């Protein structure tokens, strides 16, 4: 399947139109409800805790490179940076990717400027450590203990360093909020962190925090997209079962063929 067939192209177009359509509806004033996501609601609380204790906040994106996962993490960072600027709390952001580092510094600077606290922004607090997994992990653990951070945020793509960071944060007594699309690391965050955002709650993060119509519309559109995928799964399962039970009537799993699996 070097190129898409008509069914696959139509499916992509359908999901794309649904998402873009929902965004346009939201921009025209249609309201969309988002259920409470405890992990995301805890962000403001966690920032408040750091402010009360007079200790810094640590935000890390793990080993994320500049892609959609890190763009989502940056959207959340932007929200946290604004809160930190507003309350006068120090925000430390160690980064493991050079292109991402330049964008991260820009985002934090803009957040502080938007809150009228441009002078309070310390570029030294946004640092590129290393792109090597455990050099980065070890350096962040060192920062956690030396700076005695009160709150740790983990948003981005993590690998094995997730447990290293989360357990170190727990030992340091920090409140920890984590969110990652890396399913392999979710168990470690659930054990060691206080709040965890699972699966596509991660991609709902920016919409949830900002309540911006475009993002809420996109969230609604992707839920409809999931509904379409679910319908295809059910249809495919039914066809597969019928093909097994009545092979002379249902000669092949046509849906599987259309999706390039048959």
């Amino acid at each position, binding site marked *: 399947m070097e190129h898409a067939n008509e069914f696959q192209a139509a499916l992509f177009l359908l999901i794309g139109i649904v998402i*873009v359509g929902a965004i346009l509806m939201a921009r025209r004033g249609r309201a969309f409800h988002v259920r409470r996501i405890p992990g995301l609601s805890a962000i403001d609380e966690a920032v408040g805790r750091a402010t009360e204790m007079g200790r810094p906040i640590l935000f890390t994106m793990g080993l994320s490179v500049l892609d959609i996962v890190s763009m989502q993490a940056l959207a959340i960072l932007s929200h946290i940076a604004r809160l930190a600027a507003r309350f006068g709390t120090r925000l430390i952001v160690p980064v493991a990717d050079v292109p991402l580092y330049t964008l991260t510094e820009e985002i934090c600077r803009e957040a502080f400027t938007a809150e009228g606290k441009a002078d309070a922004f310390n570029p030294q607090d946004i640092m590129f450590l290393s792109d090597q997994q455990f050099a980065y992990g070890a350096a962040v653990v060192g920062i956690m203990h030396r700076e005695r951070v009160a709150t740790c945020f983990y948003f981005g793509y993590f690998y094995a360093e997730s447990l290293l960071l989360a357990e170190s944060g727990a030992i340091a007594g920090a409140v920890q909020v984590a969110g990652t699309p890396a399913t392999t690391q979710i168990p470690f965050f659930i054990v060691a962190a206080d709040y965890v955002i699972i*699966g596509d709650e991660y991609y709902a993060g920016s919409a949830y925090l900002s309540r911006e119509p*475009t993002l809420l519309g996109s969230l609604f559109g992707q839920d409809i997209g999931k509904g379409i995928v679910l319908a295809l799964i059910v249809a495919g399962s039914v066809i597969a079962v019928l093909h097994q039970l009545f092979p002379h009537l249902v000669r092949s799993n046509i849906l599987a063929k259309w999706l390039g699996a048959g």
Partner: protein
Amino acid sequence: MHPFAPVHGRELWIYIAAATAGWIALFALLHRLPLRHKRALTIALTFIAGLFYTLEFYLPAKSHWFPWWKNPLSDLIVPMGNAMNVIFGFTLALGLINLAMIHGRNIARKRPGWFNSAAFFAAMISMIVFGLWQTYTPDTNRPAALGLSCAQVHRVYDVLFNGLLQPLGATVFSILAFYMATAAFRAFRIRAAEAALMMASAFIVMLGQVPVGRALTNWLPAHGFYSQFRLERFMGWILNTWSMAGVRAVGFGLAVGGLSMALRIWLSLERGSFFEMRESKP
């Protein structure tokens, strides 16, 4: 002649010089553009870049209705891949330069812990020098330079890579095993029925993976109904049914969420604190 055929010799250097001069001129021009034009250019380039791979996949290679049709983008996949190879190679150098600047500042200003930065330079320089040197010298007793033979250069590299880098990297990763043990003691608490279920599954999977666990149920028959209760088979059942369903469900959600995010970025519809701040700037 392929449009992206490699060139050599003087022609290659002319291409490099012309490309460098062209990019410098282009960046100088882009730097002078007003912000709103930069934004429009960013949106246009983002769209075109995303469009390339999308169209290459969704346009058919051939068409029944138009026999003359051939997907024109497919021939560009290999040159694009090679271009990405080169661009990603630059990021390695970018990382090194950035690190050198940060650690250089630490040493110059004698910040606390500056000796760690000195260690960084020592490690980086020795690894680069001996890494490249051993690549281009044969492992023989022929003299190399600085009083070292080629074989000695290879031995020094062996010490750095196999003797230092490997054990140090493996050691730091091994910390995870200890953290896992303390996390298990500290945090795995059965406070609800779901937690008890999760714990039971975890025990079965952990024991089913190792010989001591398999030995616990070795006495059960290897075939038949009761063979299902052998730990390794029970573990397989958990992984192939319950766990797989959960992983698939999360995977589908992430995939659609990722598609939505990708669409927003491709069509420059992304909104939120940062992007609105950029727009409100004059």
